[in-house]
């Protein structure tokens, strides 16, 4: 039993202990697999239905499609991409999401650098005030911003590409408190000696920022990029406000799918294909960069 006194007892020892009770392990595995099935089934059902013909979807459940005679088709995807305006919505979503991810993270990086490595009066109070903004519900900002950006103000909203600019700026404002909070905590934890010796060698703040702070903060920045990308790509509310349901050529994917879902036409098989198209990119991003994403949210919520 001397192994037990070793610090950081390994997971292997833990599980070997439990392997000694086989009946318990069976129950445990059954429960965990049932949970996994519960989480996978809804999405799997949608995927199966999206490749079934329209009349089959309307007359029988998706699970019947898993048994012979098989009748799969890509017709729904072809239809939705050609006439549903989905490919345009896909481009719109990219046009909205890319700047709405780059701008807030860059602006937050400047601020986080200043908070971490510059001294000025009121620094800590200002930082706490910015964290306080973290929980202002977006709803609180809508009426004044519609006045400011809409026809009563600078007339940025409407059918033109100006509405995209409005959405970029709004997402920047909304995303900043969390981005500053996460980046300042990460940058503030970088070794002080590195910045001091750079300063002695004559490097200015611009050099220290681009050559030291940014490359060393890549994990935090990656986490933020994924977070903000998913948030904006999946956003419905801000797009509804600033782009408006009436401006069909400017709709991002979430709005296009939502309007398919709430319209009375009931082209359900199209809706399923559309929903899957809207999920494709976030799922790819998620699986490719999952590690950073998990690190980002655990760092953001637990360590602070």
């Amino acid at each position, binding site marked *: 039993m001397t192994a*037990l006194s070793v*610090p950081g*007892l*390994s997971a292997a*020892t*833990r599980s070997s202990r439990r392997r000694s009770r086989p009946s318990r392990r069976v129950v*445990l595995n059954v429960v*965990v697999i049932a*949970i996994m099935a519960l989480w996978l*089934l*809804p*999405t799997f*059902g*949608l995927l199966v239905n999206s490749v079934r013909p329209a009349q089959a979807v309307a*007359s029988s*459940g*998706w*699970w019947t499609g898993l048994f012979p005679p098989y009748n799969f088709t890509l017709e729904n995807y072809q239809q939705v991409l050609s006439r549903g305006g989905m490919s345009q919505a896909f481009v719109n979503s990219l*046009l909205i999401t*890319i700047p709405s991810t*780059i701008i807030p993270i860059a602006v937050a990086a*400047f*601020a986080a650098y*200043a*908070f971490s490595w*510059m001294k000025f009066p009121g620094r800590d109070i200002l930082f*706490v005030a910015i964290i306080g903004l973290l*929980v*202002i*519900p977006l*709803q609180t*900002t809508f*009426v*004044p911003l519609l*006045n*400011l950006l809409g026809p009563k103000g600078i007339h940025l909203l409407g059918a033109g*590409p100006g509405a995209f600019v409005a959405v970029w*700026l709004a997402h920047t*404002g909304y995303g*900043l408190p969390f981005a500053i909070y996460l980046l300042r905590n990460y940058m503030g934890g970088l070794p002080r000696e590195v910045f001091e010796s750079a300063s002695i060698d004559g490097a200015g703040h*611009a050099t220290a920022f681009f050559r030291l702070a940014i490359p060393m903060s890549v994990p935090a920045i990656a986490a933020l990029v994924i977070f903000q990308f998913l948030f904006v*790509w*999946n956003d*419905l*509310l801000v797009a*509804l406000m600033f782009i408006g349901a009436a401006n069909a050529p400017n709709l991002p994917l*979430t709005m296009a*799918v*939502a309007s398919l879902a*709430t319209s009375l036409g009931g082209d359900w098989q199209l809706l399923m294909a559309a*929903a899957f198209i*809207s*999920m494709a990119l*976030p*799922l790819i*991003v998620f699986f490719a960069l*999952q590690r950073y994403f*998990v690190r980002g949210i*655990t760092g953001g919520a*637990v360590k602070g």
Partner: protein
Amino acid sequence: MDPRLITAIIVLVGVPATVIGYVFLVEQVLRLVPGKRQAAVRPWLWLLPALLFLFVFLVYPTINTIVLSFENKFQKEFVGLDNYVYFFTNPNTLISLRNNIIWLVLLTFLTVGGGLIIAILVDRVRYESIAKSVVFVPLAISFVGAAIIWKFMYDYQPPGHPQTGLLNAGVAALGFPPITWIQDAPLNTIALIIVAAWTWTGFCMVILSAALKGISAELLEAARVDGATEIQVFRAITFPLLLPTVAVVSTTMIITALKAFDIVYVMTSGNYDTNVIANQMYKELFTNSQPGRASAIAVILLLLIIPIMAINIRRFRQQEAIR
């Protein structure tokens, strides 16, 4: 040229160039400032873009919304507390308030409780990372996507027809008449909350799991060697040590529940007694053209969230003190 193409070029070239150029511009401007002042001016120039965005898109609108909530629909006349009185006397808005309370309690309970149980269970199997990914994936899907996915789970066909929704197929297989999950209150609000819980449980699980891994294995093993059962170990050691993390996740989920919008908007548009505050605000603003009432709802939402904000800020300061 196609305006979309121009937009695309701005997106891919202009935005990053402007953003990076700003820092160099600042350093050029600072050369004009006398040497001693530079150190005093520099931080504010670095902070300037952030402060501008925060002021224009968060601080100013919040203050303005508070003012507007005391004005009429034309945003001109002062009407005192009328908009608030309307909110607390109109049966429709009261339903949305009631539903948000149900959301708050049930969503927090389901996601934090479910996340905790799953975190503990998967900690004991060898395929832990796969199991966690499966539960976590819905977080990458939009609420709109989740709503569509579950629309098909809750699908209803009249009795006698083959059921196309998985849940009603199960109900029919047990010999009961199919249930209209989305139309029957109060069942439908619970049905909508389950969609949100399906999405957010993974979030709670990942954070609680990270905290669980932080608990010293020696401590747990020592208790087991002393003869403690698994349940005693959980009650006396694991749970108390997880409590701060549970509190953190709970505040996040409470805020999520208060802001719930997308799922309700897509699945029911707030009909069949499923309305929530955020959707009611959208309706007041766009369907009823009542910016005053919409502002009052936003202020109420803000007031509900402020106590949670106070807790979060205090927690942050405590952590800073430890550091």
